[in-house]
């Protein structure tokens, strides 16, 4: 039974080692913030941080994540105080909101790697994430705002 470090807590996951993290989070640990959009790595809705890198949890078997620090949307802050969460609320980024946990986690990885991204940095980093509602204009503005620019 693999033990994973999720949002700073050590969690035993009663699941086979090949189970992708997404299903372990959602179905075994009842952490439903990370979303299923495609299951094949092409939409980004399931993005989480693994050692501060954005990872598509629908593709990552839990066996490969033992000993790493996993952060999900539930662990980004306890009170919506992360600059991205604040900007997302204030600039009214979400429409249906279903893709936004993934967008925010991927943007969090971007800001860790490039604290003051340009439009081009944002394009290069975020273009794998689908928002079916088309909130991209606001995602861009919110990343800039969260980066303090």
């Amino acid at each position, binding site marked *: 039974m693999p033990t994973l470090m999720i949002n700073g807590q050590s969690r035993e996951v009663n699941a086979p080692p090949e189970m992708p993290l997404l299903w372990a989070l959602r*179905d075994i640990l009842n952490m439903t913030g990370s979303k299923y959009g*495609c299951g094949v790595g092409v939409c980004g809705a399931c993005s989480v941080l693994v050692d501060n890198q954005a990872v598509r949890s629908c593709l990552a078997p839990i066996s490969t994540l033992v000993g790493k620090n996993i952060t999900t949307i539930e662990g980004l802050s306890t009170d919506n105080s992360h600059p991205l969460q604040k900007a997302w609320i204030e600039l009214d980024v979400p429409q249906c909101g279903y893709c936004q946990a993934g967008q925010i986690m991927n943007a969090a990885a971007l800001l860790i790697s490039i604290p003051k991204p340009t439009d081009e940095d944002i394009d290069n980093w975020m273009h794998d994430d689908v928002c079916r509602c088309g909130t991209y204009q606001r995602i861009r503005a919110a990343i800039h705002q969260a980066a303090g620019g």
Partner: protein
Amino acid sequence: MNSLTTLDMPKPTRRSFIIGISAVGVGMVLNSTLAGGSLLRTLQEESAQSFEPTVWVKIDPDGTVTITVAKSEMGQGIRTSLAMIVAEEMDADWSKVKVKQARPNAGNGSLGTGGSGSVSGSYNNLRRAGATVRSMMISAAAKKWSIAEANCTTKKSVVTEKNGTRQATYAELIDVAATISVPTNATLKNVANFTLIGTRQPHIDNPDIVSGKAIYGLDVRIPGMKYAVVAMPPAFGASVRTFDASDALKIPGVIKAERVPGISGVVVVADNTFAALQGREALKIEWNMGNNVSIDSSVISSRMKTSVGTVSDVPATSAIKIEAAYELPYLAHATMEPMNCVADVRTDSAEIWCPSQSGDGVLNAAAQATGLAASKITVNTTLMGGGFGRRSNTDFASYAARISLTFKMPILFMFTRADDMKNDGYRPASYHSFKGGLSADGKVTGWIQKVSPSNMGENPTYQVPSPSLTGGSLSSPVPTGAWRSVQHSSTVFVNECFMDELAIAAKADPYQFRRNLLPAGRLRDVLDQAASRAEWTKPLPPGWGRGIACTDSYAYCAHVIEVSVSDIGILKIERVVAVIDCGVAINPMGVEAQVEGACVDALSTALKSAITIEKGAVKQSTFIDFEWLRINEMPKIEVYIIPSTSSPRGVGEAGYPSVSPALCNAIYDATKKRIRSLPVQQSQLIAVDEPATELQGNVNVYPSPFSTTFRIDGKIEQPKGNELTFTIQNLLGSRMMEFTASMTPDGTFSQEIDFSHASSGVFFLSIRNGRSVIVRKVVKE
């Protein structure tokens, strides 16, 4: 009984003030202190029987205001805008407002959310509800202070004595208010005095969304719940002949792998989604393929053409006659959250949790699937990860109810992304044949359209003499349904493009040509506004074009789009101007979001995505082959809302129809190429006036598709200098990469390109030498 009467009455916590208001203005108050939790007091006792509230408002002693709304949220911001209407008239403190989702009771349709009708259809009721509460709070304060009601004012859930010092919060007044008769015709505010409506308010659910707490259908977890998927038939009309589930049942966690009555596939139920999917993978199924395997898109296309047949002529007196045919593909909804539903069917009752645009429909579907009376079924509507019309259907609720009924356990049924894309109710494909006539001085003399299928046609909104619209029927196995803006997604495209063709044939300015065919009014005003905001007459750089289109679908909307098209046919959207007149804009921030989102839909479907049929089935399966715009392809969209005090109209769909015709009219302006089918192909865009000089030689690109790097080599003829420029652009013309490399004097070159940072999809690689260029398509997996 009716839709909101009993089930949706907010649970009476002690001392809460609860009021329901019906469409005809009858109010009902419930106050647990006075009534021991059961008193229903109405203005006229006899009306209690037929009381049909459309909204409940609850005020708790801590000041929280809970508004129960009948419409469901799919991203259109309806929970926010409906609550704003009530809170405005109520003068509630917006920061203390919470929204609760109504449950359907008798399935009478009142929870149906679609046709962009939620705000326009409930505006008056919701205003009256808010005004009634405010009036009762004023009466309560006046009674408490023994002063005239006219001496009381309200603001942010507080009643204040005019020229006095006394103040009371609504929460402090609820006991007194509960003893007051419900007024039948509380005075509504003057629209000019609105303080909340018209302000920019973020979605009320944003805090839950950005923290991962928001509950969509797939997030529902109930005790003992199992996870179900279905091995769906591989073609429309296919069915299971035999199957062998022995391997599936060996997968740890798989509980059932069986047929279920009423479901035409094999159902797999497991302890978790992963096991269910693995179990499905391990099934061995032999299918009866049914009668549709010979059907593909080209068959449907020729059936549509045959059913349209010949089109009658425009009046013989017409000096100029033109004709054109347009064809549009099927489209999937591809909501970000695939279809799903949780059902817990027990012996004599059931509870359903469903992300639905039609709570009533879900109730009916569950009743039908289970044989239970509707009164024994509770339906909870969750947030929806997108809707766009797909969730007005209830197929997924029936699946869930049947599976739970059969296996006697609570289950979450879900479509995978591919299931969802291949089992949709699609925007219909359509074929439109037009004839148009003009007099010698450029006046329209005739407008004739024949369309297949017949429900996909519409006469133009313009004043043209006796327009004619006839349709042919189409036999197709592909199920269809409502898709954002329904038939307008197609009708406005073809009408606005053909209108442009007439304008060009009349040698007229496309904007002025349209304007002359519109009576003074709100549609002409949005057209004028769009032209002026976009600086219609300002000259454009060479290779650029500008197009315009407008529509009266749900609201008045017009778009002007500027594009540039390079000499090798690479299209770039330079500017999008959108103007909307939706009457009173309840929440301008939400209106802008809808217009931006609809524009992304329209550009995605104009440029990238279509559903095609192969062997009686949908070919596409995920966001790779049914592509949506990505952030790097997103043009800046300018949205202008016309200030208005008229009754609100719908905005969820209004922003879609005029985008693609404005785009294709702009492409015509830039290239003189008329786009008559979507999505636009790059090959359609090579400018007529400036044919590209093709680079001669031998160029190889491999492998294709590639995953991270690919190689390009070859030898070009008559090289100029020793430099080659490589450019990679995406489908929308954004430059992803550009660099130069050298070649030998005889033109030989070899280059490895690392393109690992890019998303998967189709890209154009152009190789230039001097003024010659060659373009190759590359596909990244």
